[in-house]
């Protein structure tokens, strides 16, 4: 994959080579030309998606998202190529450079406004507001399962359709024939009546002079030729040959290596460290006291790490030094009690009168749940290569947020954004971790002390102990059922609210609801963890609804169906999973089935887990059936792979995932004590997709929130033990095993 330099694209209308470039009429200080008439007439709408057509009739799609394994380069290229009627065998892609003009405006708009449409007269104002917001926030984030939903739908497709319209117009003008008589197919336009044909490349120079249509007509679903198919992913060949370059693999001339140890207790400062280099150390160049961390620069990672391990570093004490995980949970419980007593909880949602409905209920079910801190544990440990020279800084890293990286570097070095270049590389897993800039700032702080490029590599230990964690939390849930087992009241008090804002919503029709939260202070840094708040609320809501089904003496799947009758998409997903999972067929003793369903990032996903609990109390998840309604799966095989990935990621967390705090610091350090799912523990996963016709939903995250409750609900079904504390490995299930005769 080739990278564009800043110079190569700015100010280009028609490239010197005669290539047609759509949306590249972007010049600093000339905003109206940036708009290129694509979305609005004038003013503030920017098209941040581009394509160019080369003289050899190759179409290159420029993609403003990082490839972290979701196949986004392929999927977004397909969306554009389909609208353009491009020849897929001659489509290439390149990742957009980190530049303000690529601020991911459509992503932010999608997040803030959802898929709402606005009255025509408001559009420009709203677009202007979003554009400003996005630029201030330096938004080029790959996350929130947003690429397809927002960039693809609102950017790529429009860019492709607009280009096709321009090419058709150019052909009509050249041949002097009615545009309606033209056909576009495989990067060629033909006029059957006069027997004329021309390739897109041939028409491109003329097309570039045509005014871009304001409202290019998008294809309807039955006209798709690429979307909905699964061509081989463009990024895969390099990933089987060892040629794919991740941030970790950057080699810059004259580069040296660094590694780092941050204060084990978050926020502590270095008290003392001997920064002199011992005479018997090999290849060590510098020991740096960075105030809250110590770094070593050396000829290689190994030399740096060996030196770091030798150092006797003393850290200042902090008020959190003695804190344990127990203290943290106790603190949360106290904070919850206090907030309840003082009635100081914030409202998430309220309807009817939950209090009186609860007191009038026939049965009341009540439970407290607890979830642990989770680390991301991306396969590629954190790293960043930085070179600070001549008032400039160059960065090589794999980031979900290259513009954020740029801004962080500029701020740290007090230089202008123009002086910062970010070369984004492949990401060896993101999961939210690589939307942060902590590692980049460290690398720059190190690199500015020397005049050569430095690659900072974190050890796995550092990666585990200095993550930004999915929070640990407790939650209190209460519900009332009437005589026939129908829920009449639902009350839920939870801690912390990040995003998306709707994560704690109850999808079920319960008349009286009170959902509240409070946010106690925490000294453990928080970060986006695959599916963010849904990773918490999926477990809470779907466990508790299962408890209610049991109390109501109803089948858990039928119970969910009866409470979602106003949601046709849920009904269809539940029907299909009932069939595909053989829900109603018997299982052997000590086997169980559990279901969970949730809507997140625009997709509805249900999962049924089939588990066995053996005599040693060991849980084996044999099979997971997944039914997803993402509206429309652009690349069904890629979507399926994302479902599989999210399930295994969530399963690892559910089974053994737990970061605990001891003496103020993270107790786990590597894969031996922060265990993740391996092949011998991985279930067989069967994914079924429903193309419901709704706007495309996310793929990278929505399968994660429901796997934990599907498994714990299955364990309940197998053993009668309700797991209210994750991870599952904390619960001794031996006693629960039924005697088989």
């Amino acid at each position: 994959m080739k990278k564009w330099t800043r110079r190569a694209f700015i100010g280009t209308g028609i490239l010197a080579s005669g290539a047609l470039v759509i949306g590249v009429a972007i010049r600093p200080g000339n905003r109206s030309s940036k708009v290129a008439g694509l979305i609005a007439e004038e003013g503030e709408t920017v098209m941040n998606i581009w394509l160019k057509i080369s003289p050899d009739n190759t179409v290159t799609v420029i993609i403003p998202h990082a490839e972290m394994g979701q196949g986004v380069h392929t999927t977004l290229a397909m969306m554009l190529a389909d609208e353009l009627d491009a020849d897929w065998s001659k489509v290439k892609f390149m990742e957009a450079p980190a530049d303000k003009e690529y601020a991911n405006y459509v992503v932010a708009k999608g997040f803030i406004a959802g898929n709402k449409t606005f009255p025509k007269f408001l559009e420009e104002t709203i677009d202007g507001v979003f554009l400003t917001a996005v630029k201030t926030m330096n938004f080029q984030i790959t996350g929130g399962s947003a690429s397809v939903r927002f960039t693809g739908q609102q950017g790529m497709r429009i860019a492709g359709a607009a280009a096709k319209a321009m090419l058709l117009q150019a052909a009509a003008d050249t041949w002097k024939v009615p545009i309606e008589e033209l056909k576009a197919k495989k990067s060629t336009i033909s006029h059957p009546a006069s027997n004329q044909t021309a390739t897109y490349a041939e028409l491109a120079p003329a097309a570039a002079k045509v005014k871009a249509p304001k409202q290019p007509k998008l294809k309807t679903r039955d006209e798709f030729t690429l979307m909905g198919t699964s061509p081989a992913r463009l990024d895969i060949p390099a990933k089987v040959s060892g040629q794919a370059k991740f941030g970790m693999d950057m080699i810059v001339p004259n580069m040296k290596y660094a590694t780092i140890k941050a204060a084990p207790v978050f926020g502590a400062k270095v008290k003392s460290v001997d920064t002199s280099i011992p005479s018997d150390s090999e290849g060590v160049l510098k020991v740096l006291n960075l105030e809250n961390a110590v770094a070593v620069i050396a000829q290689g990672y190994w030399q740096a790490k060996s030196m770091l391990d030798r150092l006797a570093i003393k850290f200042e004490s902090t008020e959190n030094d003695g804190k344990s995980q127990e203290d943290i949970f106790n603190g949360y419980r106290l904070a919850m009690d206090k907030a309840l007593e003082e009635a100081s909880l914030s409202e998430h949602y309220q309807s009817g009168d939950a209090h009186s409905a609860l007191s009038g209920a026939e049965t009341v079910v009540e439970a407290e749940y607890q979830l642990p801190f989770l680390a991301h544990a991306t396969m590629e440990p954190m790293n960043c290569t930085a070179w600070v020279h001549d008032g400039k800084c160059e960065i090589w890293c794999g980031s979900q947020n290259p513009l954020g990286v740029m801004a962080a570097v500029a701020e740290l070095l007090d230089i202008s954004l123009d002086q910062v270049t970010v070369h984004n590389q492949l990401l060896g897993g993101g999961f939210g971790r690589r939307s942060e800039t902590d590692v980049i700032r460290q690398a720059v702080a190190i690199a500015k002390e020397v005049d050569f490029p430095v690659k900072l590599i974190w050890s796995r230990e550092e990666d585990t102990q200095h993550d930004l964690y999915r929070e640990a939390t407790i939650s209190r849930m209460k519900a009332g059922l009437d005589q026939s087992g129908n829920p009449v009241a639902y009350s839920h008090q939870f801690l912390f609210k990040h995003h998306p804002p709707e994560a704690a919503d109850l999808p079920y029709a319960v008349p009286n609801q009170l959902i509240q939260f409070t946010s106690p202070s925490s000294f453990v840094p928080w970060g986006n963890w695959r599916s963010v708040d849904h990773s918490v609320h999926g477990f809470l809501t779907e466990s508790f609804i299962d408890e209610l089904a049991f109390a109501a003496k109803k089948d858990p799947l039928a119970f969910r169906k009866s409470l979602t009758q106003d949601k046709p998409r849920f009904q269809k997903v539940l029907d299909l999973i009932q069939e595909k999972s053989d829900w109603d067929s018997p299982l052997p003793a000590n086997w169980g089935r559990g279901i969970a369903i949730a809507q997140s990032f625009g997709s509805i996903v249900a999962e049924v887990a089939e588990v066995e609990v053996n005599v040693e109390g060991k849980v084996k998840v044999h099979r997971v059936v997944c039914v997803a309604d993402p509206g429309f799966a652009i690349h069904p095989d890629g979507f399926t792979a994302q479902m599989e990935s999210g399930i295994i990621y969530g399963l690892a967390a559910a089974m053994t995932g737990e970061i605990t705090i001891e003496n103020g610091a993270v107790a786990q350090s590597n894969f031996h004590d922060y265990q993740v799912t391996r092949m011998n523990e991985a279930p067989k996963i069967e994914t079924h997709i429903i193309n419901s016709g709704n706007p495309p939903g996310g793929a990278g995250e929505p399968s994660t929130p429901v796997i934990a409750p599907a498994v714990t609900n299955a364990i309940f079904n197998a053993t009668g033990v309700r797991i209210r504390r994750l991870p599952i490995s904390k619960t001794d299930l031996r006693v629960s095993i039924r005697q088989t005769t």
Partner: protein
Amino acid sequence: MINLTINGKEYSVEAPAGMPLLWVIREQCELTGTKFGCGIAQCGACTVHVDGKPIRSCITPATSVEGKKITTIEGIAPDENTLHIVQQAWIEEQTPQCGYCQSGQIMSAVALLNENPAPSDEEIEQAMSGNICRCGMYGRIKSAIKRASAALQASTSNPQLR
């Protein structure tokens, strides 16, 4: 000075005593296909072959493999224009997601099929459980190994796996 034979090529490198093979391969030889994941033989990302056997290069001192035949992901294809049967199967099953673990996965799989050209599910699981994939592509890895195994069986004319 250490002398290593990697993918049939001789390398003479300066490396301090105890330096693991992984860092020599990645930093001195600039063969970055072999990955660092954990450094303690827990994840398999650094798997290479020494005399055809899979080893974890992150805990193997470079000095201990002098004079042996080392193979990395860059060296398993029969020639520049042909992929190894296992790599081909990986593409056909669209196995990699982020791809970071896949060099190690492929090296473990090649070693397994060299030993056992027709492994059962259990044998695959056993051989591959030392390789973590945080993208959770275990199902696809397993299918790809079976596909490669079938391809091996189907054609006896295939060049011998290394």
